[in-house]
């Protein structure tokens, strides 16, 4: 029997594609739908740090609510004590240490929920810690600067403590990315602050000169800027041979 008007086989263009892997197609679609598009800050950080992972750790710091709150509370709590307490505010000299302890407790077993996982990742956990520290202090410094427009006490707090601490964090990060050792970077930051405190004391005779000398504010900002530049240089993309 023949079929009248049999059109014959379809031309090749109408053949269904052989062996379409629908799972693969779906994964491609899902990847596009689900993907999180990095914002401008994260893209810039990824370029500067040459590590998308570190950039993500940097920008997601506010998402890690508890560490963020701890560090901010410690920063502004100690700042308030500085403003209220009588006599020489010696607490300014230990404040960077207090804040560093707050940050250390914000990243470790028992406090960072995913610490064990982070520890097993290729991006060193201490560098993630430094990135988070820098994010916390930079944002706190920005908050302090905003508050400075309202209150004179906030000006003292911001420039007497937060800006130096931002510089110390930036220095530690610069050393870390240069020598590829977070421990050396952290040590360099603490050592630099100690030397600054002792040197200021020797020159001026005042114990808290490192934090109260208004002439030091600009150098702190300059150090922070230079260190940021060093981080950018040390992590610049290198040409392939």
């Amino acid at each position, binding site marked *: 029997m023949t079929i009248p008007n049999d059109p014959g086989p379809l031309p090749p263009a109408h053949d269904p594609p052989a062996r379409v892997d629908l799972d693969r197609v779906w*994964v*491609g679609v899902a*990847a596009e739908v689900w993907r999180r598009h990095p914002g401008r800050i994260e893209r810039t950080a990824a370029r500067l740090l040459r590590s998308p992972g570190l950039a993500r750790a940097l920008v997601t710091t506010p*998402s890690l609510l508890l560490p963020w709150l701890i560090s901010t509370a410690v920063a502004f709590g100690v700042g308030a004590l500085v403003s209220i307490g009588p006599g020489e505010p010696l607490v300014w000299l230990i404040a960077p240490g207090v804040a560093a302890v707050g940050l250390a407790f914000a990243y470790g077993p028992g406090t960072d929920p995913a610490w064990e996982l982070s520890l*097993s990742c290729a*991006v060193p956990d201490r560098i993630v810690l430094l990135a988070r520290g820098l994010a916390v202090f930079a944002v706190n410094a920005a908050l302090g600067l905003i508050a400075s427009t309202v209150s004179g006490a906030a000006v003292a707090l911001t420039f007497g403590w937060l800006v130096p601490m931002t510089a110390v964090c930036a220095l530690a990060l610069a050393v870390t990315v240069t020598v590829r050792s977070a421990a050396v970077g952290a040590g360099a930051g603490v050592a630099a602050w100690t030397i600054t405190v002792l040197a200021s004391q020797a020159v001026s005779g005042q114990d808290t000169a490192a934090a109260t000398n208004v002439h030091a504010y600009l150098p702190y900002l300059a150090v922070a800027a230079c260190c940021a530049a060093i981080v950018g240089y040390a992590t610049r993309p290198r040409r392939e041979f």
Partner: protein
Amino acid sequence: MNVEMRDTYRSFGRNRAVAGVDLQLGTGVFGLLGPNGAGKTSLLRMLATVLPPTSGEIRLLGQDPRGAAARREIRRRFGYLPQSLGYYPSFTVVEFIEYFALLKEMPSSAVPAAVAAAVERVDLGAKARAKLRTLSGGMLRRVGIAQAIVNNPDLLLLDEPTAGLDPEQRVHFRGLLRSLGVDSTVVVSTHLVEDVGTACSEVALMSAGKIVFRGTPDELTARGEGYGVGDAPLERGYSAVLAEARS
């Protein structure tokens, strides 16, 4: 060999968690069985480069993890699911897996597709954009498995991966394990002998920090013939070997 351990010890104070383990593993799914406190998790944490051995030698993926550069390279190529998975409650499933994919230094252009594939492999597509705080324990376990496999690891270390999974998901997961074991070394620490029986090509039983049995699941089953303790043949083998080791 992707895993080589020689005379490896790990102590915590006076407590010796791992006592002279020798282990060489190629591709395949390797089950690590043993009672609580046998040293399974300590062994797995050493393989995950999270816990250094007190003494002995470990080589992973052909490299010595004591060197920082080698350790970093190893960490790019393995996946790890810890016994207790910590997570950031405000992250979504995709954000969490993506975060760890980036920390594993995967090329950022490859991350979205790898994350989507991992999410689909653990059957969490419907929850891809859900916050982790809204997920059940079994779903969180699957998120943990997804972050472990997102980089298509050559070495996959899973500590109690099926804890909290419902029976259907456990069956699904065993199939996933078998497929992963074709090209990779998969080490699974578990209490559940049925996981070992169906998914593992080889099994080791630990007791008091030592490996007291190593062989196929069938060989472990054979050790239990005539032994009365245990409901299933493999359980009887497990119990028989443990009783022998303790005596």
